[in-house]
């Protein structure tokens, strides 16, 4: 078979799968469809990764947490009652997996070496400040916050979810989410204020933020 066919039979099937809702996929998974859950994973893994990475601030920990969360979701899919969106349910499982990890490690004092290092380092020319550096500084700064404030800020400010959505994920009242965000932001001001002075940051970044939120 040297010349591939124009349309492989799988294409239609894939296209059909793409329009299936998360809830339907979950139903199919419960019914025994071996591919349904991996489709859910494929759709949401980047978001789940972002949440876990920002909440935990450590890629290894985040990988463990997301894996635990997906396996856990796989097992307890039947407990999903459809009272919330599948994404909310998944976020909840991921955030809880992260919070569990943080609690287990809570004895560990804040690892702020990176932060001190970042503060002492000569401030680079603004234009050359890479996104990566900003990202690392933000990660370090977030680690200084209590777990609940961090989780709220990750969902609302970083991931761009509404306070209501975050409240559903965290299973607390909206007012609590707002208050955690407010306290968290207040603590971050002295740590992150130097980033604000870097030219172009806010302008360039707003667009990016919006993009993420829309995604």
């Amino acid at each position, binding site marked *: 078979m040297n010349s591939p066919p124009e349309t*492989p039979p799988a294409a239609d099937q894939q296209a059909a799968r793409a329009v299936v809702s998360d809830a339907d996929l979950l139903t199919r998974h419960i019914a025994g469809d071996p591919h349904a859950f991996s489709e859910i994973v494929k759709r949401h893994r980047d978001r789940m990764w972002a949440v876990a990475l920002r909440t935990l601030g450590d890629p290894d920990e985040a990988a463990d947490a997301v894996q635990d969360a997906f396996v856990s979701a796989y097992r307890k899919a039947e407990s999903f009652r459809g009272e919330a969106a599948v994404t909310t349910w998944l976020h909840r499982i991921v955030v809880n997996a992260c919070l569990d990890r943080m609690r287990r490690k809570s004895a560990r004092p804040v690892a702020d070496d990176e932060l001190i290092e970042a503060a002492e380092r000569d401030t680079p020319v603004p234009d050359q400040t890479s996104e990566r550096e900003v990202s690392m500084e*933000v990660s370090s700064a977030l680690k200084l916050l209590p777990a609940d404030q961090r989780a709220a800020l990750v969902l609302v*400010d970083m991931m761009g979810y509404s306070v209501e959505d975050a409240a559903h994920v965290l299973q607390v009242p909206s007012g609590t989410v707002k208050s955690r965000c407010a306290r968290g*932001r207040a603590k971050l*001001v002295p740590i*992150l204020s130097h980033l*604000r002075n870097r030219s172009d940051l806010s302008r360039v970044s707003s667009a990016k933020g919006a993009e993420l939120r829309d995604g």
Partner: protein
Amino acid sequence: MTGDTHYDLEVLAELAEGLLDAATALQVREHLAICDPCGESLADLAAVREVLSATPTPAMPMGVALRIDRALAAEAENFRGGGVGLVEAPAWDDIMRDAPWEKAEPAALPEPEPVTRLGVVGDDGTVVPVTPARRRRAAARRRWALPAAAAGVAAAVIGATVTMTGMLSASGPSKNPVIALPSQAKSPKYQLTTSNWNYTDQELRGSMLDYIGPMAATGTTETSKIEQCVRRLTAQVGRAPFAVDQGFYNGQEANVMLFWHNQPKNQVLVHVVGPECDEVRRPAFARWK
């Protein structure tokens, strides 16, 4: 208030979130109207939000995505296997990594019957024909039949695996992630074809056999670059590809490499790399047939 002159950042942050009662909010607003430092602080708070939302959220690294896929596959295996009675799914793929039947080279498999190897080029350059997939179910079972029979209980499987690995594989029971290749062959065995087909993303999610089906393989001369790349991906994926096709991806020169993810289940992992071995597409799963 700090001293009697300024408000705390926290109070200002609460104001911004509308958390203050009406009277306090009014008081703070009046102060803000005349106090520049507090106005600055409020701007700083807004800037923090800005910085946070501007921080890029990276996509999940491939390694993590693959790890999760493996964990879920193991979960499915355990779930469907039934009868094993394990509460926690063992990390089969980790436990079995060094097992001889997990390796790219099928020759050492102590299989009771010939294995279905789809369109793989044999030692002598001939292509093993595609075998109908009617025995998939049995194949899925067979995967664990050997250790299960040997050990009886799941807990003993690890020990049994190590023993068997020691006997059958040159690599021994080491946890070293280096891929154990058959000693007689220096390079991983895979089918190398040049279809020059321009793949689209959608095609790469479907049945790959339609494109890369068994055909005369390209010689292995002047392909050292591909070979290097294959080695790199082999190390990355943890196993060797079984088929590599030289073609195009969205109009760009690209090599499509297929790795078995779950052969009995017909699942392949597709990596698409450019001429310099750069990944030009997020690795994804497809079907073989």
